[in-house]
């Protein structure tokens, strides 16, 4: 996991976003290395989703910056990239898993086309190879090959989420952003998805920023945690450190509020 060249993949420096006079996210700094999974936790309105949008260059920061180490090894300020470069990054080297799979999928085309489309976007034109890759990825996310030509409209919530993951991973990205990836799923479906994600993240040595309000999800997926409240970071550390030995009052409240099964 500790890459031989030890430069971080992503660095956030003093990231701040104001919505009018309302702070969305204030002065957030951290770095993410290859193979590292960071969970950003907090309640609604804590600024965790704003942070994810800032990191993935979907919105512009009021101040601060995001640096990213490109595939050629050069570290670039995301704000300095042209629109085309940013789009290329977003559909090749990055993935984005939405809570609502319909935002991350194209519901009008088949499952196979959903996976294949990302490959075509990076120049793959050979139909056989695209279909082969799509089928391989359906296997990997445990979707029956027989469903490859069906529209994701006919899929269950859990299957849609797994298809969305396949669509993201087909271009071998190095960094995945996840926004409440298990939100709204039944618990058994959630467990299966978490297990799948854990395996994929480890096997592919992905770096992940996962936003969740669910501390159990953070415990299972992440190495490190960032706890946010009111747009600010209140506590950071190793995941088990933050959950087993929380220092700040707010983190203690969050941890103490988990209902035991």
């Amino acid at each position: 996991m500790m890459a031989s060249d030890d430069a971080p993949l992503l660095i956030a420096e003093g990231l701040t976003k104001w919505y009018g006079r309302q702070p969305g996210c204030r002065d957030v700094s951290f770095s993410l290395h290859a193979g590292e999974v960071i969970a950003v936790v907090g309640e609604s309105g804590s600024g965790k989703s704003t942070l994810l949008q800032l990191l993935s260059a979907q919105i512009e920061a009021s101040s601060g910056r995001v640096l990213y180490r490109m595939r050629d090894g050069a570290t670039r300020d995301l704000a300095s990239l042209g629109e085309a470069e940013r789009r290329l990054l977003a559909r090749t080297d990055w993935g984005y898993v939405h809570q609502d799979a319909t935002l991350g999928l194209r519901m009008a085309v088949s499952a196979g086309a959903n996976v294949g489309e990302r490959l075509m976007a990076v120049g793959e034109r050979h139909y056989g190879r695209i279909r082969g890759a799509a089928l391989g990825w359906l296997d990997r996310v445990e979707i029956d090959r027989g469903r490859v030509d069906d529209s994701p409209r006919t899929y269950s919530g859990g299957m849609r989420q797994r298809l969305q993951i396949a669509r993201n991973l087909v271009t071998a990205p190095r960094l995945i952003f996840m926004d409440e990836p298990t939100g709204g799923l039944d618990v058994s479906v959630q467990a299966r998805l978490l297990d799948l994600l854990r395996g994929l993240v480890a096997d592919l040595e992905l770096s992940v920023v996962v936003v969740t309000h669910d501390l159990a999800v953070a415990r299972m997926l992440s190495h490190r945690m960032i706890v946010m409240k009111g747009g600010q970071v209140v506590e950071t550390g190793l995941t088990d450190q933050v959950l087993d030995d929380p220092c700040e009052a707010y983190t203690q409240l969050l941890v103490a509020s988990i209902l035991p099964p």
Partner: protein
Amino acid sequence: MTLALELVGIGKSFTMHLQGGIRLSVVADVTFAVSRGECVVLAGPSGVGKSSLLKMIFGSYRCDRGRILVQRGAQQIDVAAADPRRILALRRDTIGYVSQFLRAVPRVAAIDVVAEPLVAGGTPRDLARREAAELLRRLNIAGSLWGLPPATFSGGEQQRVNIARGFLPNFPILLLDEPTASLDARNCEVVVDLIAERKRRGAAIVAIVHDEAVRDRIADDVIDMTRFAAAA
């Protein structure tokens, strides 16, 4: 004797913000060292901070004061001051920890729970599974259970899966929190043998064991934790 682990002046307290900010002192000024091939047993009544100390060495509890010096190859790393990535690196190749209870992950088969630390360290999955199977067999876990997630296992079975997971990688430091607490005599014997083997291979072990018979057989040194009780 080569030192593997050294604790210098470790102090720890919890501040309970939800209880009006009261401070609970856990330990103060804990100082001891463990050499390679040596087993140190922490002794003292419940609540004296034994498990907390193991968690501090493993890095899942923070320290307020002091240094926890761990030998990693030629490097010496202070867990109390190390950044998260360094602590994770230590857990991948240096420090093993058998907790009191297995934290079961849904859907993951017992054999993969056991093999996971080896796989994370780069061992091919097939080989890691074979070694996991051998250790599970030694700990008398029926082969019919290997493919099942341990969440539904009995307490003793879960603990043996946990022991197998902790003992499988050949780490130079092992932390054991009540490894034999829920085991019958036969399995207890297996664990005592495993500990002896690890010591012969040079592992430094810090253990919490209440059973005096087991303690007498594994301990090279017993540390009375009441010595480090913090002045409340």
